């Protein structure tokens, strides 16, 4: 295989300790629905969904809670049956701890599926657009963490005439094993989902890239895909960040996606194995995405493993179900240790994109106590994008955000390789995240200023127009007045004349 040599010719990426094993081998547990669920309305990339229920309304499991708003958005469904207790702000599963709008569900304990769900015996008979529509109706989003609405991706890949569907079974983040577990346990469902996505996107073949540290998953997927020629399982070397879209495409197809373009432009589209499973569920059983398999792991967790969790369950409850914590966690993370979000506290809800909940014990959690950069260029060698992290951080540190942008800040995928290898413990990703945020804020300010300038111009034009109109009006009035006066004068003159005439006449008449 040509791409293998190409891969080994490259030197980017890192080999972190994976910490996957005890958790990956444990059987999947299903978490019972907790009493209250907090279903966030911003669980996907794009605009938050618009609530479609009222407080006090009774819903069944799988009923629509919120409609997508705008072109990039996704529907949200009830993870269990019960009562809508509130629609309001709750802390978001995000480092900032800022509020997010959410629907609070009070579970009735029945967990009864909605009657309205339509199963489909032969979804391959459906036209591709119908499949995309149903996937959209089921609120499926990318399960790898990016949470891009999947239906949109399927429809646009059809438009872009995509030929290859890449299924991401890389799961290169340490600690996480939910995709591994899913592939081992439900390879058949995944392969079915892949074939449905092939049908919907119009791609000819599917390549499932699975890292070679998951031999069981590779075997299971190979077995499930054996009867379907269009689905190929392709082991890839275990290396972080191979699960990243651009890197995965490069390794599997040798194609390099141009900066600022989408994989679709190169005839490729990437979906996660979890998404394939969700598509399968949506099409075969009409079931929307209301729960997900996630990994609970980390040194502080007493009983690590993979758990099926309803969307909206609190992290606190999930950890408690997993057996609680053996020690005080030093850090709570949603997602993997490389790119996951640190949580402000445990009372935040699980969202569709949460691939893991990690409670790291003291020694595991990297504490970036920054020392001076010695320019050892470990970060340059680790960077999968070919950037110069040390130079970018130096510019951000010095306040020169534009300089950092010129060095390629916008190409950074925030994979964290640089900060992972940095011997000076510099929080490089934090520098970049800060700079990206600050640049975006500047961009917004510029757009705002442009809009304000237009408004100000509009106002001054309006004022000028009003003044002109007023002047014109005044002039017209004046003209009218004068005309009136002139007329009056004329008439008065006339009347005076006539009066005079009358007078003279009167005078003429003998008194």
């Amino acid at each position, binding site marked *: 295989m040509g791409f293998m040599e190409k891969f080994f010719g490259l030197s980017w990426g890192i080999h972190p300790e994976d910490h996957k094993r005890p958790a990956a081998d444990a059987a999947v547990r299903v978490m019972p629905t907790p009493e209250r669920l907090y279903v966030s309305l911003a669980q996907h990339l794009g605009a938050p969904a618009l609530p479609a229920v009222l407080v006090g309304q009774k819903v069944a499991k799988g009923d629509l809670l919120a409609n997508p708003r705008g072109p990039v958005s996704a529907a949200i469904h009830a993870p269990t049956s019960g009562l809508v207790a509130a629609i309001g702000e709750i802390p978001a599963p995000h480092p900032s701890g800022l509020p997010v709008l959410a629907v609070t569900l009070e579970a009735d304990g029945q967990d009864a599926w909605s009657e309205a769900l339509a199963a489909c015996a032969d979804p391959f008979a459906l036209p591709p657009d119908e499949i995309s529509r149903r996937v959209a109706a089921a609120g499926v989003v990318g399960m790898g963490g990016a949470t891009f609405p999947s239906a949109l991706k399927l429809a646009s890949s059809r438009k872009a005439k995509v030929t290859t569907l890449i299924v991401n079974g890389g799961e290169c983040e340490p600690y996480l094993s939910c995709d591994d577990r899913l592939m081992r346990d439900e390879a058949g469902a995944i392969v079915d989902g892949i074939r449905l996505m092939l049908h919907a996107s119009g791609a000819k073949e599917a390549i499932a890239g699975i890292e070679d540290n998951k031999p069981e998953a590779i075997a299971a997927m190979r077995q499930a895909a054996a009867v379907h020629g269009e689905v190929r399982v392709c082991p890839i070397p275990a290396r972080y960040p191979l699960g990243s879209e651009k890197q995965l495409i490069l390794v599997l197809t040798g194609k390099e996606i141009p900066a600022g373009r989408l994989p679709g432009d190169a005839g490729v589209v990437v979906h996660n194995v979890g998404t394939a499973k969700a598509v399968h569920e949506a099409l075969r059983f009409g079931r929307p995405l209301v729960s997900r398999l996630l990994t609970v792991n980390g040194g502080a967790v007493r009983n690590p493993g993979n758990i099926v969790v309803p969307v909206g369950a609190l992290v606190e409850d999930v950890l408690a179900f997993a057996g609680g914590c053996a020690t005080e966690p030093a850090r709570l993370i949603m997602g993997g240790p490389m790119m996951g979000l640190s949580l402000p506290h445990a009372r935040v809800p699980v969202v569709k994109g949460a691939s893991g909940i990690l409670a790291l014990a003291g020694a595991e959690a990297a504490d970036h106590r*920054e020392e001076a950069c010695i320019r050892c260029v470990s970060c340059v060698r680790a960077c999968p994008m070919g950037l110069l992290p040390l130079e970018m951080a130096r510019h951000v540190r010095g306040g020169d955000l534009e300089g950092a942008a010129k060095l390629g800040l916008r190409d950074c995928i925030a994979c964290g390789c640089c900060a992972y290898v940095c011997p000076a413990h510099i929080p490089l990703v934090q520098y970049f995240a800060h700079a990206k945020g600050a640049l975006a804020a500047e961009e917004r300010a510029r757009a705002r200023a442009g809009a304000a300038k237009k408004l100000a111009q509009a106002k001054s034009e309006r004022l000028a127009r009003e003044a002109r109109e007023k002047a014109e009006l005044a002039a017209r009035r004046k003209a009218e007045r004068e005309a009136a006066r002139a007329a009056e004068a004329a008439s008065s003159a006339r009347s005076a004349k006539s009066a005079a005439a009358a007078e003279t006449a009167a005078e003429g008449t003998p008194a």
Partner: protein
Amino acid sequence: MIAASLSLTILGAALGLVLGIAGRFLAVEANARVAELESLLPGTNCGQCGFPGCSGAAAALAEGHAAPTCCPPGGRAVARALAEKLGVSLDLSGVDDEGPKLAVVAEDLCIGCCRCVKSCPTDAILGAPKQIHNVLREACTGCAACVEQCLTEAILIQPVPVSLPHWVMPRPAAA
């Protein structure tokens, strides 16, 4: 003596002639710069810089009477753009840019006099006589032109509240 003065005079005259001709051919019109500078300013004519409107500020900048940091609503972004256009180095330490600002009407104080509505350069204040006025978030630039107009001091300039998509990761604390 005569040779000395004569030769220097001729030399000077000749060089002056050459430069005069070159100046004719290589002339650059100066007015374009004022327009360029004005296009970088917010254009709201709020007057916080102390010059008569943004065009006045642009003229002052072009003549070097104003510093690139003269525009408070523009913040660092405008200051940087101006400095780049002017080709001067910039000391941003004097600019207090606490992020975008917004005018907020205190509803219990507003008497609905409509004075602020007229003063707003971007028509961002909605209101009818005798009714509580409201500020359109999207259109308000936080220029504070309305604050002085208000008789009851009901208008406050506040930072735009941070929302989740607009959150900026804090800079790492200095080592």
